[in-house]
């Protein structure tokens, strides 16, 4: 049997505003202290009225720009009506027919094949989040608890076209989305804390006798990890193949099904169907007035955008000569990491050198210390200074490592390390490359003349070049900071010419 999985994602992302979408309560994750970030507006008390947070709209529009979405000059707010205890007004203020943005795309590259695809976006709209219900876990049917701290926080809903063809692509799409939103600093996209949430619509196109048969669409809800998204979709595809083989149901034969994801068992499970199909009775919220944005205002927002991850990867490859792999490693670590890299590169003037150090020496320290780049004690400008000296040939790579190690040791002792610290360390430890050939000459003469080395000297003269090693070592011990390559050449020249 041949089939193609057809997958569309609905992603909800919480925006990084200070206050909620329609009131001044703080927008903070605070599950341990319930119902302290509430007021008449977000509790939906009789008589209260919403007032739009301008920053939430600005962040939304910024996001839309990063997602290649078209921006609407006119948008408005609608009420989506349904009953749930975490929704105190019994309607959610959302956007129905005129969202602030529509028709966009995100480009993703699949690690397995290296293939790059475009996932089209239908729209992104802004809405208020609901609160949180906590169910009694005892099984005795106790009351559920409702916390409204999250109620009314700004939420961006991003809806993709069903362009995704594999669980891997879904995960990569989400990862790219998270990276992008973190780069432009609109959301922290923390799936564990629920600031990024995902629902997946999955079905199959079965290819049979030259016919393409779509199977019923299943919505898998509340996926709260990247691994979960991938695993749930993988499971769902397998389950749907089996379902097709047994009941051969096509799209339209049954109502759209909603399923949950049980991460522990690794399977999706059917949720009880709604008795009456949802009728949200959308209509324009009479308490909120429409919003207009001019193209000039859009331009002003656009001017605040940083370079997006995809563009950054491209420029690292084409402008700095990095490998695709290194470029991705650096960009995918996040904006601060890439900014660090950019600064190191600009100070030292060599992207490859910067990439090597960042992905090896620096990364090893970050891993060992379990810290983020932002917490790393050697500033980009300082590391850049070290690398600059290597690039200019003032110190060897080996000396550079010694400086790096010493910088870390000093900062671990509580000192601030600066570009000046680099010079001091080089001077104190005599790590500067010895370029005075006269000095090297004298050192070589002394080593060659030493009786202990008579055998080695004879061997080199006799053409056994590998015998030169111990001689180089002795010269180097004598002269810290000499370049091993030059010393080797000078010894050979001396003994064989």
């Amino acid at each position, binding site marked *: 049997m041949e089939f193609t999985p057809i997958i569309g994602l609905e992603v909800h992302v919480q925006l990084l505003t200070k206050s909620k979408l329609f009131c001044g309560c703080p927008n903070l994750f605070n599950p341990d202290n319930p119902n302290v970030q509430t007021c*008449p507006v977000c*509790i*939906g*008390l*009789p*008589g*209260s*009225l*919403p*007032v*739009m947070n301008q920053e939430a709209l600005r962040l939304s529009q910024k996001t839309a720009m990063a997602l290649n979405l078209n921006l609407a000059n006119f948008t408005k707010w609608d*009420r989506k*009506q349904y*009953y749930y*205890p975490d929704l*105190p*007004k*019994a*309607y959610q203020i959302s956007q129905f027919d005129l969202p602030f943005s529509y028709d966009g795309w995100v480009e993703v590259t699949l690690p397995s094949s290296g293939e790059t695809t475009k996932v089209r976006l239908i729209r992104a709209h802004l809405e208020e989040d609901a609160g949180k219900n906590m169910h009694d876990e005892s099984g005795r049917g106790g009351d*559920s608890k*409702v916390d*409204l701290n999250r109620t009314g926080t700004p939420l961006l809903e991003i809806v993709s076209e069903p362009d995704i063809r594999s669980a891997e692509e879904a995960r990569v799409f989400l990862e790219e989305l998270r990276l992008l939103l973190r780069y432009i600093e609109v959301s922290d996209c923390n799936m564990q804390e629920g600031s990024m949430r995902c629902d997946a619509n999955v079905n199959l196109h079965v290819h049979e006798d030259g016919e393409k048969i779509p199977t019923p669409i299943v919505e898998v809800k509340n996926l709260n990890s990247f691994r979960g998204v991938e695993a749930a979709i993988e499971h769902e595809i397998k389950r749907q193949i089996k379902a097709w083989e047994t009941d051969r149901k096509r799209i339209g034969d049954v109502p759209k099904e909603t399923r949950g994801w049980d991460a522990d068992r690794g399977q999706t499970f059917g949720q009880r169907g709604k008795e009456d199909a949802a*009728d949200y*009775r959308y*209509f324009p919220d*009479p*308490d*909120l*007035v429409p919003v207009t944005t001019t193209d000039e205002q859009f331009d002003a927002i656009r001017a605040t955008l940083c370079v997006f991850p995809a563009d950054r990867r491209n420029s690292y490859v084409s402008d700095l000569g990095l490998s695709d792999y290194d470029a991705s490693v650096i960009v995918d670590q996040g904006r601060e990491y890439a900014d660090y890299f950019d600064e190191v590169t600009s100070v030292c003037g060599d992207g490859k050198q910067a990439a090597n150090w960042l992905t090896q020496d620096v990364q090893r320290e970050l891993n060992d210390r379990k810290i983020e780049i932002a917490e790393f004690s050697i500033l980009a400008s300082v590391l850049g200074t070290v690398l600059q000296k290597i690039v200019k040939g003032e110190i060897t790579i080996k000396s550079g490592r010694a400086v790096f190690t010493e910088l870390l040791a000093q900062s671990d002792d509580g000192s601030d390390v600066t570009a000046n610290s680099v010079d001091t360390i080089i001077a104190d430890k005599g790590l500067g490359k010895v370029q005075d050939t006269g000095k090297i000459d004298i050192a070589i003469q002394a080593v060659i003349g030493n009786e202990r080395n008579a055998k080695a000297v004879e061997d080199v003269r006799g053409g056994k070049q590998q015998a030169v090693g111990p001689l180089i070592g002795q010269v180097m011990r004598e002269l810290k900071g000499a370049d091993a390559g030059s010393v080797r050449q000078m010894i050979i020249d001396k003994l064989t010419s």
Partner: protein
Amino acid sequence: MDITGSTTGQLLDAMQNGTVSAVEVTQAYLNEISAHGETVGAFLSVDSEGSLTQAAEVDRKRSSGESLGKLAGLPVAVKDNICTKGLATTCASRMLENFVPPYDAHVTTQLQNADAIIIGKANLDEFAMGSSTENSALQVTRNPWNIDHAPGGSSGGSAAAVGARLASMGIGSDTGGSIRQPASFCGVVGMKPTYGRVSRYGLVAFASSLDQIGPFATDVTGTARLLESIAGYDVRDSTSVDRPVPGYSATVEQPLENLRVGVVSEFFGEGIDSDVDASIRAAIDVYRSLGAEVSEVSLPHTRYAVATYYLIACSEASSNLARYDGVHYGRRAEQFENMIDMYAASRAEGFGAEVKRRIMLGVFALSEGYSDQYYLKGLKVRRLIRNDFDAAFENVDVLAGPTCPTPAFKIGELVDDPLQMYLSDICTISANLAGIPGVSVPAGFSSNGLPIGLQLLAGPFEEEKLLRAARMFERETVWHTKRPSFS
């Protein structure tokens, strides 16, 4: 001094002169409430202690020379759908019988800033849905001119309180005539300002795009004074309009030169009571006698106004009242099978018949497959109704007609005929759909001694013009000086 027989202006002067103190004024009204409050049933709660404390504070400020607000010492009855922090705000509903808001409505704050005395919370049709105050789940309110008759509604409590002189002024809300019609029935002045003129923050919503808070007083000047204290932009209401508030009471005595009055022919249609017809035509003659240019004006879409209104108002109401589900505030049923049943049972217990009827109509009008035919159609006809007014105001300054086709009906008369009750709003409803201001001023009495109101309408934010035109009429007539016999 006959305190409760005085206008707001007379009371302010007397308190300013030291003839009476604010405490004496408040006490006089509290005494009237003790004597007649039960008969009229205007108040759902009376805050005797709080109002005397406020009055004493006004006296203290005055004696120590501190500055005082424009309404200093004037007792005001506030409709019980306007939030008052720490004072029950019930909307005359079983649903909110025990609801005590933790915050003040903008209007409440404005009244406090003006040093008015909030003497009590006035009865209304449940959630302001009705035209007679008979839909109050908590209490019957009677017309002070004849206690067998309804005071009108939905702000019947505020209108009856002012009409019976149980308060110097009243605050109501007007969604389809709910200030003007009870003002007309109770023989007082009542005004619905332009949509957006007064903040709705803290007004428990019935139909958000139509609701507007407004003043009652025994005369036009008092109405102007109260309006200028509560009007103005409020950042907490996105639909409030950021324009300066003119000093209405300062200009109200200035007659309008070359006033052009348009008489709305559709407001004199079939069903108009002959006494009403005669009184309003006589009122228009008063304007003629003052030199106004009077012409007939047609608002051709008036015949669609009631249908349009009920579609829009009920659609919005069905959504606004969805929040009363027994979870975060309000009534929760004692008996239920599960959560969904708890919602449905709590709402069934908490709401009265009219509220249920309107929620049902609204849910239906917004439901899938019907919303284009009903809700959306309503929004489109609404624009045509607004266009009628825009065209009319090209040629006239104010429109005139009866506030209601009949004087106050008897209690119980229309209760079982909701459609007939809705049709009684024919003259007031269009102003809400169009968002324009309107005022009802006393203009006579029916043969059986019930008040009749003249309604004047003007273009958006023309409150000043409207009040001056109303005052021109009032100055020539005595209707506003009449008082119900027992008061």
